């Protein structure tokens, strides 16, 4: 299945990082169909090639503002659910909300540092390609910190909070159980409890439940 979704587009203006990403992706069996370095090229590539997943830097030439992000948002408004993983030197809740706003999933937003850990990064790329989400732990931490005074969140146990964080990053029950050294059934129990406390309808679909949790946190 993963084999079928391996056409990748890379948009990054720094040559070294672009080259590194291309090599990393090729080494993990992806087919890099285009490696572009500016906003207009990126938008053209996204719309014409319709890659299975695109890895996009926020700040790109020619204006070096948020060219990449704008291109990603424009492309997704024309092709809903086009899988895009946005990379940046800094993460902002504002950008995360804009990316999640259409509610169609298949979106990722990570710090560039996450590339250091190749396995986790490739895992995030695959997750986005498969229609899931990959949110940077730092975004989630900021999101939860600014929601600290939020009633239902304060009612969560520390363990439930950890599960919520991992879930909001876009991880499946299996991945959460691995990371927190819990059994999958325990994770399922925690998620059910979290959903009950937040007043959300439980869902077995990993992708849909992430979007529900993020939408809930963003809606305060």
């Amino acid at each position, binding site marked *: 299945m993963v084999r079928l979704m391996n056409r990748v587009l890379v948009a990054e203006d720094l040559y070294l990082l672009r080259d590194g990403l291309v090599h990393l992706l090729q080494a993990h069996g992806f087919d890099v169909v285009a490696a572009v370095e500016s906003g207009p090229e990126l938008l053209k590539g996204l719309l014409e090639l319709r890659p299975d997943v695109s890895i996009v830097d926020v700040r790109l030439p020619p204006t070096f*503002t*948020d060219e990449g992000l704008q291109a990603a948002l424009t492309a997704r408004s024309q092709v809903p659910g086009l899988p895009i993983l946005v990379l940046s030197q800094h993460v902002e*809740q504002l950008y995360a909300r804009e990316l999640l706003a259409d509610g169609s999933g298949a979106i990722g937003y990570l710090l560039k*540092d996450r590339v250091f850990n190749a396995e986790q990064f490739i895992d995030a790329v695959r997750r986005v390609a498969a229609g899931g989400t990959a949110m940077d732990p730092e975004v989630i931490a900021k999101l939860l910190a600014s929601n600290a005074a939020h009633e239902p969140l304060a009612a969560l146990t520390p363990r439930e909070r950890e599960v919520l964080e991992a879930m909001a990053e876009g991880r499946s029950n299996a991945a959460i159980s691995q990371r927190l050294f819990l059994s999958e059934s325990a994770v399922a129990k925690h998620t059910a409890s979290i959903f009950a406390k937040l007043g959300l309808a439980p869902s077995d679909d990993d992708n849909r439940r992430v979007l529900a949790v993020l939408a809930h946190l963003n809606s305060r």
Partner: protein
Amino acid sequence: MLRKFAHVLVLFALIVVELLVLATSLLAVMLTFGLGMVFLFPPQVRMIRSVTRMTRRLVRESSGVEIEAPYLPPPPAPQPQADGFYRSNRTLYKTPRVPAWNDRWKWMLTDPATWREVLWLVLDPLVKLLLVPLFLLLPGRGLRVYGLWCELLLAATTASRLASQVSHLSKVRNLAVDTQAAEMRRIERDLHDGTQARLVAIGMTIGAAEQLLGDDPTAARALMSKARDASAETLTELRRIIRGIHPPVLAERGLGDAVRALAMDSTLRVTVDADLPHRPEAPVEAAAYFAISELLANAARHGAARAVLVDISGNGPNLRITVTDDGWGGADPAKGSGLTGIERRLAAFDGVMAINSPPGGPTTVTMELPWVLPEYWAGNLPKMPRWKAITVVALHATAWCPLFPQGVVPAIFKLIGFDEESWFLAMHLPGPWQWPVIALMIALGTAMYVLAVALPTMHDKDGNACRAGNRLWFA
């Protein structure tokens, strides 16, 4: 009426004081410059200044003529040299007393306002006596004339106004330079103690791993993973430093969205209402951003606020920011250094800050940065609607017709007795109708010209007024 007479009476009572001061002044000048008793000069000048200050206030209350104090800014307090001595010209002093006195002496002696006031003091009693008839008949008018006379000698001159402006600007420049230098030092310290040290550690770890690579690959691998973690930490730290210099989101999105991002990261419930059609210059944006950031932090830290409203809008060419929180209030710039820091940041752009924080709250901080919004100096004034523009052109194109051939020309013909009907409407009418029609035509033509000029002028004024409140896009 009675009040006016009371004012006049007070003015005349002042003559006694003026004469006394005049007498002591003459004495003081003679003693100062004749016998060298210089210590008499400053108190005498101060005495004159208190009389003129009183007069300025009286004039303002009685006639509404506002007279600005004209004095040059007082000299700054003397600063000790590196060796602890105070220097005045080529002499060193142990205490600041003598240099300070010298500075004040020079300041009073060289200020043209001092000598203009002496002249005023000599002439004022005479002027008052000359104005007695006017004061008795039309006290209101008399007070006004007296006010204008005082303004002539007691008001600020262009030179003194410029001098105080220069001293204000150099003060502001020094503040801005100091603030910036302090920022640079802070950044240098952060980079030196944090980032640089970490990079050295990473380099050493990688070096150690390199040596171990052959003999002990497992240990080398452990070291490499440590180096990777350390580099991630360094990046986090660099991100923090960059945020302190110029937040990336501010560079990418501008003030409105940067403040929105700030609001989302805040634990308070922050509502942001940003409405700027164009982005101001980057330094202005940064000053405004850091000011708002500091205010949000203050609201959370000291005021125990729960909700904050940030409003960013243009007030004509000025950028106006209002931050209102529902905390305890009682914020005082004299107490916290945070508010002083904001004032300093804003001062570099001639910006001002007003705080209204009654005990018990709410606290409202209003900041205004004058002439920083770009649409004004970009010369991009609002366009007139099409119908208005067409009307103006049509008026300009046709107003000549009633004014000249139908108005002025037949009037001249009639005056010189030249009898020519041609196409002059008035000439075809019976006698008694001719002059009224000519007058009507001239009035019509003039009115059309006035309207053609007035329409664009009024539009510009309206445009400027409504721009302050217009709700355009912000992206």
